[in-house]
């Protein structure tokens, strides 16, 4: 079926911790609590990558998590967007050049993966919601809407 505008209004998010310090994860939980209530935009946390439209990665990819990150990416049905959350996931942050780190996520994922960067240490819930808005812009592009 052709991608329509409805897709934007029902994004289901799968959250995977690829080796972060848990601060970003707590902020993600904050984003779904009543204060920010992302469910009013149709954004929902789901338990399985098979249900997801958006993959939320937090943390630099540790050696152990590398295969899992790639596998979860493969398991997610198309079309999908990757939200790289936090400075660690973007640039490996304070873990830069560590022996246990396989490098930032964008060097591992396939070339055609669409990645959106959400920065902050930890990220703020507002920033995560802003990241989802950028995912909408990408989906608009995918539909061929000229904006």
């Amino acid at each position, binding site marked *: 079926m052709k991608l329509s505008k*409805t897709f934007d*209004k029902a994004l289901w998010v799968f959250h995977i911790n690829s080796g972060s310090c848990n601060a970003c994860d707590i902020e993600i939980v904050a984003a779904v609590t009543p204060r920010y209530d992302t*469910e009013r935009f*149709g954004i929902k946390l*789901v338990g*399985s990558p098979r249900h997801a439209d958006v993959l939320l990665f937090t943390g630099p990819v540790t050696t152990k998590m590398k295969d899992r990150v790639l596998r979860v990416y493969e398991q997610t049905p198309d079309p999908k967007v990757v939200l790289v959350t936090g400075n660690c996931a973007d640039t490996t942050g304070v873990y830069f050049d560590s022996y246990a780190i396989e490098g930032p996520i964008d060097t591992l994922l396939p070339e055609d993966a669409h990645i959106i960067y959400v920065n902050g240490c930890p990220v703020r819930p507002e920033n995560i919601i802003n990241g989802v808005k950028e995912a909408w812009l990408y989906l608009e592009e995918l539909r061929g809407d000229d904006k």
Partner: protein
Amino acid sequence: MNFVVSWIVKFVFVLVISLISIFLGLLYKGFDRKITAMMQSRIGPPLRQPFRDVKKLFMKETIVPDGAVPWLFNSAPIFALVASLVAFAYLPIGPFGPLMEGYGDLILLLYLLAIPAVAMAMGGLASGSPYATVGSQRELVLMISYEVPLAIAAVTLAYNYNSFSLATISSEPVWNTVGAMGILGFALILATLIAVMPGELSKVPFDQAEAETELAGGLFVEYSGRNLGIFYIAEVVKMIFVGALFIALFFPYNLSSWYSFGGPEVINGMLLGNLIADILFFLVKLLIIICVGVSVIRVAFARFQINKASYFYWVPMTVIGLLGTLLVVFENSGL
């Protein structure tokens, strides 16, 4: 010839009822989510959110995992949906009698109610994921648990009316057929059925089979795209089906029996005003039952452990149900 025409008419009606029930199911799911959000002091998604979810799921890629049995994996959602839709043809809805009156009764409905759960377990086992296997086993354990109080309730109602026919049962409200002791008995039966409802629909206190936080989606863990969308629709249709069954068994009241709204005659000598009032009244009753049986319980309770959920149905609910049956039997035997 008349025979053929009447069957074609029935066929068309079944199609129409199926479409209406899918629409209503998604709408009531929207109500459920909105009410839940309001109880948690959130704004919540708009009422049309479930429609968006389903539309989105149909747009997604549908993956059949390597370890799965494809034909079983793909047919399980269809079994679940068809069983829930067929059940509607045997149910009196608002002012209308059951469409397939005379072809099925309460026992058939109980079996049709069990098929979606079995289909879900089947699909989970066919998907070849350990999470889904655990989910399927939990679903089956839960099923054999809640079937006991459900069967007790069905048998009590049938005993009271001397009939398993839904048209007979819903022709007169159960509260008018018995005295004070019987009313107390049926109140107990109603309480057990309300406790069965979240288990039947795998909603929060009894959603061990799906349990997102521990089983990552349980039964549905490998389902994606279209298959997940069909399961989503089957689930919401089952939700309003159980609500409508409650109404048929315990609250078959119609506004038109108290006050006539007039208007021109339409079907079977029913007045237009009465017809509209009765349908609206039915929808309100459905909303109240879903609000009590699904939304409030979902917000108020946390998930049980599977063994405790099973115990809950096997011991306290069965005892309460049998107590209700006993009261009704005493009442009817004139002791």
